[in-house]
């Protein structure tokens, strides 16, 4: 039968963490017969361009980056206060002593203290109100939280992808004892109660790493990157290994081997190009998972340390206002939902674009 009559509905299926692993033995992203240099990418782009939903996801992600890394500082300048500035005396309702609600104007002296005569006093605007009794700007914290979430999610994804691709490629390419060792290692990691372990590690070993920031990241970002990355590599590793296993038997690899190409060269210039598709697709799906994971860990109080804003931190202080200001639960939850959704949609779209047959 011609391939075109295969039901295209199969596409877009199975993006879940475990589901992908289960089908990993098959040709996960379809064997791309030959990387027909430009034509292939053109086709991918052509197919991707038609997927309006995925494009939407992609645009949202670009916007998210802009908001997080450019919009947040701009908003900070415009509003005249920072995400960690506290207004413990002024951003609280004088009657109830609870944080002010959305679109609150109030006057405040330096340090967020009540105005006293003789000291300059400024008017402040809190667009989404205050986050807690500390009286921090929920809106700015939401924007800055995007920075943290993206840094953790992408950092952990890069680390786990790097480890996964490296180990998966080595295992798949060299086979034999090396493959057996790496595969067993993968199975051991998979048998761990991984989330329990991440929780335990983030809390015991984590605090020691919190001060390690490389000068550009917030405190605790790299801790989460390591803790998550070190446990999440097994998933790309299995996919890449399966890909390499099937590619290894292909004629062009045989041919390269026959003309005496070194292993490294074969991996780099013959195999890696075929892995670009799965790497890109799974990266975006894993980023989505990691956004959720960061929020979860910070919610449990073992993620990003104080006072840095992260969506999980915002979510974790919200239940204190369960009875009086339930909307505080909504903002960070929506932010997580939209970001994750965007990465998932992009990932699905890319998968479809790379692999129109959706063969699993």
């Amino acid at each position, binding site marked *: *039968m*011609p391939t*075109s*009559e295969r*039901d*295209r509905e199969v596409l877009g299926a199975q993006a879940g963490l475990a589901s992908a692993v289960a089908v990993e033995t098959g040709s996960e992203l379809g064997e791309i017969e030959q990387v027909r240099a430009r034509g292939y990418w053109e086709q991918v782009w052509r197919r991707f361009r038609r997927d309006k939903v995925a494009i939407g996801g992609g645009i949202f992600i670009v916007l998210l980056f802009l908001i997080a890394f450019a919009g947040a500082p701009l908003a900070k300048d415009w509003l005249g206060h920072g995400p960690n500035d506290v207004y413990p005396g002024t951003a609280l309702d004088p009657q109830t002593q609870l944080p002010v609600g959305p679109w609150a104007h109030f006057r405040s002296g330096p340090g967020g203290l009540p105005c006293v005569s003789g000291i300059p006093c400024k008017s402040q605007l809190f667009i989404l109100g205050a986050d807690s009794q500390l009286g921090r700007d929920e809106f700015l914290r939401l924007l800055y939280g995007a920075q943290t979430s993206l840094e953790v999610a992408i950092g952990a994804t890069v680390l786990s992808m790097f480890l996964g691709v490296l180990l998966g490629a080595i295992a798949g390419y060299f086979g034999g004892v090396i493959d057996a060792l790496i595969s067993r290692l993968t199975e051991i990691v998979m048998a761990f109660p991984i989330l329990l372990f991440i929780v335990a590690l983030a809390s015991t070993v984590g605090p020691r790493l919190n001060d390690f920031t490389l000068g550009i990241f917030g405190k605790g970002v790299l801790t989460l990157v390591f803790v998550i990355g070190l446990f999440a590599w097994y998933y790309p590793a299995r996919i890449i290994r399966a890909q390499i296993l099937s590619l290894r038997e292909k004629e062009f690899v045989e041919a390269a081997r026959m003309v005496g190409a070194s292993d490294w060269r074969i991996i780099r210039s013959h195999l890696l190009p075929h892995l670009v598709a799965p790497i890109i697709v799974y990266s975006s799906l894993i980023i989505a998972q990691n956004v959720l994971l960061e929020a979860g860990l910070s919610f449990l109080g073992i993620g990003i340390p104080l006072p840095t804003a992260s969506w999980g931190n915002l979510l974790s202080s919200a239940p204190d206002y369960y009875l009086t200001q339930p909307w505080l639960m909504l903002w960070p939850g929506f932010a997580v939902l939209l970001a994750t959704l965007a990465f998932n949609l992009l990932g699905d779209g890319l998968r479809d674009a790379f692999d129109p047959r959706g063969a699993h």
Partner: protein
Amino acid sequence: MALLDVKDLKTYFRTDDGIVKAVDGVSFSVEKGQTLGIVGESGSGKSVTCLTIMGLNPKKNTISSGEARFKDEDLLHMSPRRLRQIRGNDIAMIFQDPMTSLNPVHKIGDQLAEAVLLHQDVTKKQAKTQALELLKAVGIPRAERRLGDYPHQFSGGMRQRVMIAMALVNDPDVLIADEPTTALDVTTQAQILTLMNNLQKDFDSAIIIITHDLGVVAETADDVVVMYAAEVVEQGSVDSIFRRPHMPYTWGLLGSLPRLDTDLERLVQIKGQPPSLLNPPQGCRFHPRCPYVMDICKKEDPPLKPVTDDPAHLAACHLDEETKDREAQKLIEGTLAAAS
């Protein structure tokens, strides 16, 4: 009235990229006890033709037209219920890949018995007995024991025998075999073909055998339909077509028959890939690959018309008779030389 009469059969698939005309106006008929071979490259529409006859194409996005009359009932326009009664009972089918055509989680015996139970009012036990008999008939050793086995415990050839048994268990009038030997090794191929020939004699069924291998056709078929890019390009009796093929594509198929002599110059080779069925070439669909291509071929699709010396032998080609004679002769000589 022929047992199965297919007239102007068309099957189109709607896809995201446009309409794929997988079968575009195919007509043929089969008589009782006769064997019809349908040959062509993969993607030429032979399998889809048969699936359309059986009503096995996915309902969604498929447009079929034309007629497929079985005992004067049109298979294409009958109720699903009636079609199910005919399927597996009057018309049975054997598929290309015996490895995947059996359900891996059910026992062989159950799968065979299912075929019986679907059409005959018998007990499970009786169905099993019938299944056993058929298994013996298709030459499966220790058949009693193997009823309880699962497909993965069978070799490819044995599975194809099971498939044949399953097809024949209800004594069908028409047996459609879709490349029954492609997935098998050469020795097994021969065994399966012999088995089918013998069974045909015993059961007196009509057989439609789909293959890309003219050798298989030569061994088994009475009539041949050659398909290219969803169309019939040549059809007629085996004798007639093998004696004097009228179409460069057929020559190509004949030319790619296995030969023992390697030093003989290959007269015809089919270069290139079959065309996309989304946008088939203008004119003769074979012209981009045809070594004898003429200007007219690019503009006009040649009609399928009887060749001069045999009215039952139809071909679609613009070439003049002399060229056809000359080239066909060379080819036949080569083939004969190879065979001798």
